[in-house]
C-alpha cells in the first residue's frame, strides 16, 4: 500500500515531465494491468502452465525489486519483438498492448531514476577539464593550454559535464595533472636574468617555392590563393610572443570584410607543420594594425639544426573556405578575382618574449619578496601561506601546511635550487584533492548550510567555471557573503562580468547539445556548396543568441520564438537573411518572411538532428521533448526489429509516410505516437537548416527526386499544427510553463552539478513560479537559484 501511494505521489509530481506517462498517471497494476495479462498471458504463463519457466500471475508489479524488474524487462523485450502472444494464440488488442508496454517502460524508467538517486545530495565534484583550465589560468596568471592532455569528460544523464557523480578519476588523469602542474610551475617561477627579446619586422614576403607549387604564390596582396610569408630567423623558444600585422583591405561593393588568418610554422622536407595563431576581420580600406598573441612553445618550431631554418609567419585571407590542396584538372586562375575582397599586407612585426617586468607578475605573486631574517623553510612557509588558500579556495590551517612543508624539507635537500624545491612543493598542492575537487565536508545524516567559502566556490564555478576572484574571496572572508543583499549584489555583479561568457558557452553547449553538429557529416552530393566552417558558426550563433537574451535581460521566451537573430556574414548568407559584413556575431532584426526566430530554426539544432542528407523528424522531436520540455522519451528498446527489406521498399516513401509505416507496428506505436508529431512540423527545414517547400532525394545514380513537404501533425492531446511557426505558437500559448519548468530544471542541475531528484520538486516549482513572474528573465532565475536552499546547503 505504501508503495502504491508512493508511486501515486511520484506520478503527480511528474506530470510536467510525463510524455508517454500522460495516460499512465492513474495506472494501477491490479486494476489496469493484471486484467490485460489475465486475458492474454496467463493461459500459458499462469497457474496451469509456465511456458519458458515464466509465471506472470504471481509476478509482482513492483519493479523496485530487481529480480521482478529483470523479468519485466524480458517481457518487454518479447512484446517489442512481437513474439508474444505467439501466432497460435489470439492477438492482443492494440490499446491493451500499448498500455502494457507503456506501463512497463514507465516503471522501468522510474525505478532506474530511483536507483541512481543520491538522496538529493551533490557528490564530491572534481573540476572538469574546462574548470581546471580556467582555474589554473586564474590561479597561476599564465595563459597556457593546461587541459591538452586530459581526456574528454563524461556527460551525465541530463547532458552536463559538471556532475560530481559522473566525473571520475583515474591514474592516467592524475599522472597528467602532475605533469601539467610541473610544466606550468617551471614557467611561472622563473630563474635567471631577463630573457633576450627578439624583434623582427618586414614588409617583404619571403618566397617559398614549395607553397608556390600549390598555386598559392606568396604576395602582399592576399586573395584566397596567395599567402604572405615572413621568415623570422631569431626567435625565443619559450614565452609569450606577439605578431602585429599592418594591413588594409580592398572591398568590392556588397562584399563582406576579408578575414586575416595568421599561423606560425616551419618548413621541412615532408610535411610543413603549422598552427593558427589567430584570426581577425580587416574591416577598413584604411591601414590598421591587427595584433595576435600566443605562447611560442605551443607552436611547431624548427629543430636544433634544421635544413630550412627560421620560423615562418604565414598570413592568409580566409574570406572563402580554404580550397582543397589538390584540385584535379582545375588550375586556379592566376589573376585575382576582382569580385573578392583583398587584404594588402603593409608589414608584419614579430616580438617576443613579451616581458613587461622581470621577474614577471605571475612569478612575484607566488614568490613574495623574501625578508632577510627568513630561513629557507620560513620563506617556503610564507609562500605556501599565501598560495594555499587561493588554491584550496578556503582559509588553511597548520594541518594543511604541514604535509607541504614536510615535502619541501625533503626535496630541498637534494634540489639544485630553492626555486626547484618550491616548484615541486606547489606541484603537490596542485594535485591535492583540495585543489582538484570542490570539497565540502559533512555527513549524509544532517544537511548543513555551506560556509561562506564553499558558497563562494559554488557561485564562481556556476557563473565563471573557475575559482572565486579577489572580491568574492574578500566577501567570504568578511563573513558577509550570505547576507541576502550582499549575496544578490555580488551575484548580479558576477553576471555582469565578461567571464559570464564561460557560463554561456558551457551551459548552452551542454543543455542544447550543440556539439552534435560535429557528429553529422553533411553529404556533398546533397549539399555541394556547404562550407564546413558553418558548423562552428552555427554553434556560435546559438551561444550568441543565448548571451544576448541573458545580458540584455530579454524574456527567456525568446528561446522559443524571437524577432531577432544573432548572425555573422557567413551564416546570414547561408540563411539568405540580410546581415553583417564581418565574422563577428551581431544582432539582426527579422521579419516574418525570413522564417527564422528562436532556437528551433537555428542551424545547430536543425543540422545536429538531421542525417546530413535529410531532416530527421524523430531526432528533432526527441531533442525538443528532451531539451526544451524536459520529457525525454525512453530509449529505443533492445532488438528493435528492422523493417524487412523483402517487404515493400521504403525508398519511395516520404519521411512522413515511412513514419506512418513505423507507427503501424503496434510495438513501435506506443512510443512513436508520442514522439513523431513533435518532429514533423520541422519538415520545412532541410538537413542544413534551410527553408524548403520540396523534399529532395538523390538516388545513388544521381537522380533527383522531388516531393512536396508535409509538415502537418496532430500533437498528443489533439492539437493540429502545420509547420514550425504554428508549433512555436502552440509552445508559447500552451506549453510556456512546461518550457519554463524544463529550463529551471536544467539550469538548477547545472548550477548544483548533480541530477535533480524528487526532493527537489518543491524548489523547482518555486523557482518556476518566480521565473514566470519575473517575465522569464534568465538572470533573475540564476540569482534565484543562487539564493535557493539546495544551492546553499550541503
Amino acid at each position: 500500500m505504501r508503495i502504491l501511494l508512493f508511486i501515486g505521489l511520484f506520478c503527480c509530481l511528474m506530470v510536467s515531465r510525463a510524455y508517454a506517462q500522460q495516460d499512465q498517471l492513474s495506472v494501477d497494476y491490479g486494476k489496469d494491468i493484471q486484467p490485460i495479462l489475465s486475458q492474454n498471458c496467463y493461459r500459458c504463463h499462469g497457474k496451469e502452465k509456465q511456458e519458458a519457466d515464466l509465471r506472470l500471475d504471481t509476478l509482482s508489479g513492483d519493479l523496485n525489486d530487481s529480480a521482478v524488474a529483470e523479468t519485466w524487462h524480458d517481457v518487454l523485450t518479447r512484446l517489442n519483438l512481437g513474439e508474444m502472444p505467439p501466432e497460435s494464440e489470439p492477438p492482443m488488442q492494440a490499446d491493451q498492448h500499448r498500455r502494457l508496454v507503456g506501463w512497463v517502460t514507465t516503471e522501468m524508467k522510474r525505478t532506474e531514476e530511483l536507483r541512481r538517486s543520491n538522496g538529493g545530495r551533490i557528490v564530491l565534484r572534481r573540476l572538469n577539464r574546462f574548470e581546471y583550465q580556467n582555474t589554473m589560468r586564474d590561479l597561476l596568471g599564465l595563459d597556457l593550454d593546461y587541459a591538452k592532455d586530459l581526456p574528454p569528460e563524461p556527460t551525465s544523464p541530463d547532458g552536463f559535464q559538471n556532475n560530481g557523480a559522473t566525473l571520475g578519476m583515474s591514474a592516467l588523469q592524475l599522472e597528467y595533472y602532475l605533469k601539467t602542474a610541473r610544466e606550468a610551475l617551471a614557467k611561472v617561477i622563473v630563474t635567471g636574468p631577463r630573457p633576450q627579446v627578439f624583434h623582427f619586422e618586414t614588409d617583404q614576403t619571403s618566397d617559398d617555392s614549395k607553397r608556390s607549387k600549390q598555386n598559392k604564390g606568396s604576395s602582399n596582396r592576399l586573395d584566397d590563393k596567395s599567402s604572405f610569408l615572413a621568415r623570422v630567423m631569431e626567435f625565443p623558444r619559450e614565452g609569450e610572443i606577439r605578431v602585429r600585422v599592418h594591413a588594409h583591405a580592398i572591398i568590392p561593393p556588397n562584399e563582406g570584410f576579408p578575414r586575416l588568418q595568421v599561423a606560425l610554422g616551419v618548413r621541412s622536407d615532408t610535411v610543413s607543420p603549422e598552427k593558427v595563431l589567430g584570426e581577425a576581420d580587416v574591416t577598413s580600406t584604411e591601414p590598421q594594425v591587427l595584433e595576435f598573441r600566443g605562447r611560442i612553445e605551443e607552436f611547431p618550431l624548427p629543430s636544433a639544426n634544421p635544413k630550412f631554418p627560421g620560423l615562418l609567419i604565414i598570413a592568409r585571407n580566409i574570406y572563402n573556405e580554404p580550397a582543397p590542396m589538390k584540385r584535379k584538372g582545375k588550375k586556379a586562375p592566376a589573376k585575382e578575382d576582382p569580385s573578392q575582397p583583398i587584404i594588402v599586407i603593409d608589414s608584419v612585426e614579430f616580438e617576443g618574449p613579451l616581458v613587461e617586468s622581470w621577474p614577471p607578475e605571475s612569478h612575484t605573486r607566488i614568490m613574495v619578496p623574501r625578508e632577510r631574517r627568513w630561513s629557507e623553510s620560513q620563506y617556503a612557509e610564507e609562500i605556501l601561506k599565501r598560495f594555499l588558500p587561493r588554491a584550496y579556495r578556503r582559509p588553511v590551517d597548520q594541518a594543511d601546511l604541514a604535509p607541504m612543508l614536510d615535502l619541501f624539507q625533503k626535496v630541498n635537500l637534494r634540489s639544485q635550487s630553492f626555486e626547484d624545491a618550491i616548484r615541486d612543493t606547489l606541484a603537490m598542492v596542485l594535485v591535492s584533492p583540495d585543489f582538484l575537487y570542490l570539497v565540502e565536508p559533512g555527513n549524509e545524516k544532517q544537511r548543513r548550510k555551506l560556509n561562506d567559502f564553499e558558497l563562494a566556490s559554488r557561485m564562481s564555478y556556476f557563473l565563471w567555471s573557475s575559482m572565486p576572484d579577489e572580491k568574492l574571496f574578500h566577501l567570504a572572508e568578511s563573513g558577509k557573503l550570505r547576507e541576502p543583499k550582499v549575496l544578490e549584489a555580488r551575484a548580479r555583479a558576477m553576471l555582469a562580468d565578461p567571464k559570464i561568457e564561460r557560463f554561456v558557452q558551457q551551459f548552452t553547449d551542454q543543455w542544447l547539445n550543440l556539439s552534435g553538429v560535429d557528429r553529422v557529416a553533411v553529404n556533398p552530393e546533397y549539399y555541394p556548396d556547404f562550407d564546413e566552417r558553418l558548423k562552428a558558426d552555427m554553434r556560435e550563433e546559438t551561444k550568441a543568441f543565448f548571451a544576448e537574451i541573458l545580458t540584455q535581460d530579454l524574456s527567456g521566451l525568446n528561446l522559443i520564438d524571437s524577432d531577432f537573430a544573432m548572425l555573422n556574414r557567413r551564416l546570414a548568407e547561408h540563411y539568405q537573411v540580410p546581415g553583417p559584413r564581418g565574422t563577428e556575431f551581431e544582432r539582426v532584426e527579422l521579419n516574418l518572411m525570413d522564417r527564422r526566430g528562436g532556437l528551433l530554426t537555428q542551424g545547430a539544432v536543425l543540422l545536429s538532428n538531421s542525417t546530413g542528407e535529410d531532416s530527421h523528424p524523430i531526432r528533432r522531436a526527441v531533442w525538443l521533448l528532451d531539451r526544451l520540455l524536459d520529457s525525454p522519451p525512453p530509449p529505443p528498446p533492445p532488438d528493435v526489429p528492422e523493417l524487412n527489406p523483402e517487404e515493400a521498399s521504403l525508398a519511395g516513401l516520404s519521411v512522413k509516410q515511412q513514419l506512418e509505416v513505423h507507427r503501424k507496428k503496434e510495438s513501435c506505436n506506443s512510443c512513436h505516437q508520442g514522439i513523431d508529431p513533435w518532429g514533423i512540423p520541422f519538415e520545412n527545414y532541410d538537413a542544413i537548416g534551410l527553408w524548403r517547400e520540396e523534399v529532395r532525394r538523390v538516388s545513388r545514380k544521381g537522380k533527383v527526386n522531388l516531393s512536396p513537404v508535409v509538415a502537418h501533425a496532430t500533437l498528443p492531446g489533439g492539437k493540429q499544427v502545420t509547420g514550425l511557426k504554428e508549433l512555436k505558437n502552440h509552445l508559447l500559448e500552451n506549453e510556456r510553463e512546461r518550457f519554463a519548468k524544463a529550463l529551471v530544471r536544467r539550469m538548477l542541475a547545472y548550477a548544483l552539478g548533480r541530477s535533480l531528484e524528487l526532493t527537489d520538486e518543491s524548489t523547482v516549482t518555486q523557482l518556476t513560479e518566480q521565473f514566470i513572474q519575473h517575465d522569464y528573465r534568465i538572470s533573475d532565475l540564476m540569482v534565484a537559484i543562487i539564493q535557493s536552499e539546495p544551492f546553499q546547503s550541503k
Partner: protein
Amino acid sequence: MKKSWHLSRRTLLRGSAASLALPWLESMSWGNEKQAEAGLPTRMCAVYFPFGVSLPPANHEHAGWNWFPTGSGKEFEFTNTLKSLEPLRNQMTVLSGLSHPNGRSMGGHDTGDIFLTGASFKGRSYVNSISLDQLVASHVGTKTRFPSITLSSDGGVGEPTRATTLSFSSQGRPIPALASPRQVFARMFGQEDSSVDAARQRLEQTGSMLDLLLDHSRSLRRKLGKLDQNKFDEYLDSVRSIEQKVDRSQKWLEIAKPDIDPNSVALDASPDGPREYIRAMYDLIYLAYQTDSTRAATYMLGQVAGATTVANTFPACIGLGGNWHGLAHGAGKKDGFVALGRFDQFLAEQFAYFLTRLHETKEADGTLLDRTLVLYGSSNSRTHQNRNYPLILAGGNGLGLKHGQYLNFSESTPMSNLFVTMLQAMNIPSDSFADSTGVLSELHA
C-alpha cells in the same frame, strides 16, 4: 649492457605494410636476458567497432556484401567484405553466433561497455567488471614498461552504457582511452630530456610526494560524507596506482625507451582522415608489441552512440556518403547493404594492414602474430541487435590455436568461452571468465 641501436631508419618503418622485418632478438636488446628466462612474450589485442555489419540474406542480390563468409569449417570463402584478409586466412578464424548472454536483453546501444567484460547491467545500477585485457595485463603486464595501453577514437571513458573505452579495472572502473596518436607516442616512446640521475631524483621526489599526499588524503577522507567517500576512493586508488607506476619506472630507469622515429607514424592524423588515423593507431599498437613496451592493448574504433561518437562521420570522410549510424540503420533499404558493406570492407582493410605488419615481423622462429591474439569485432550483428556478433580471432598459431576456419556457434555458447580459450592459450591459468561455460575446443590445434 645497453646496446646502441636505432629504429629510426625512416624508410624501414614509415607507413609501409611491407617494411622489412626486424628480427626480434637481434635488433632489440633491452630486457634480452629476461626474455630468455621467461620465454617469449604472449600478447593480446582487442579491436571493437560499433553498429554491427551488413548482413543481406543469402538469396539477396547483394549477398556478396554479407560480412560473414560463405561455407563453413575449413571450406569457406570470404565475401567482398573480408577479402583483404585472404592472405592471412591461415592465421585467423571467423566466428559467428557468439554473443554475451547478458547483453542480449540490454539496450541496442548499450553493449559496447561489456564487449570485453561480459557483465550484466540488468536490474541494478551500472556496475561493470574487469575486462579481458586488464586480466591479461595483470599476468603478462608485469614484464613490460607499460602493463597495457587503451586507445579509442573518442578518448576518455564516455558515459555508462556509452563507454569510449573497452578497458575496465578489477573494480569495474573504466580506464580512460587515449585518442591522440601523438599523445600515445609521447607516453610510450617520448625521450626524457634529463639524465638518468635527474630522472631518478624526480621519481624519488614524486614518491615522497605521493606518500605525503596519501596521508593527507586519508585524513581528508574522514571528514567527508559516505557518498563523497565512495567517490573519493577513486582518487585514493589513483594515487596508489601512480605509486606503483613510480616503482615500476624506477626499475626501468636504466633501460632507455626504444628510440622510434616519430616520423614513422602519422602522429598528427586525426579522425577526419579515418584511413590514416586508424592506421596510426594500429601502427602504435604494432610498435608497442614490437618493442615489447606492452603486451595488452585495446582500441575502440567508435562507441555505440551515433550522436556522440567521432567515428560517426568516418564513412563520409572516406567518400562513402552518410554517417555510420545512418548507414547501419539504412542497411535494409535499397542498396543499403552495399553502402554499409563497403564501409565494413574499408575497416577490414585497415585490420588486414595491422595483421600483416604483425605477420611480417619475425620473432624467434615465428612471427609477432604467432604469439599475439587479436580479437576484432562488434557487439551488434545488425544495428541494435545484441546477438551473433561478427568476430575474428587472429594470431596465436604459435600458442596452440588452430586457424583457417569459419566457425558457427549457437546462442547456448557464451562469448566468454572464447575469452577463456584465449586466456588458456596465453598460458594464463583460468577456468572461467564472467559467465563462461567452457572453452571453444574447435580452436585448439
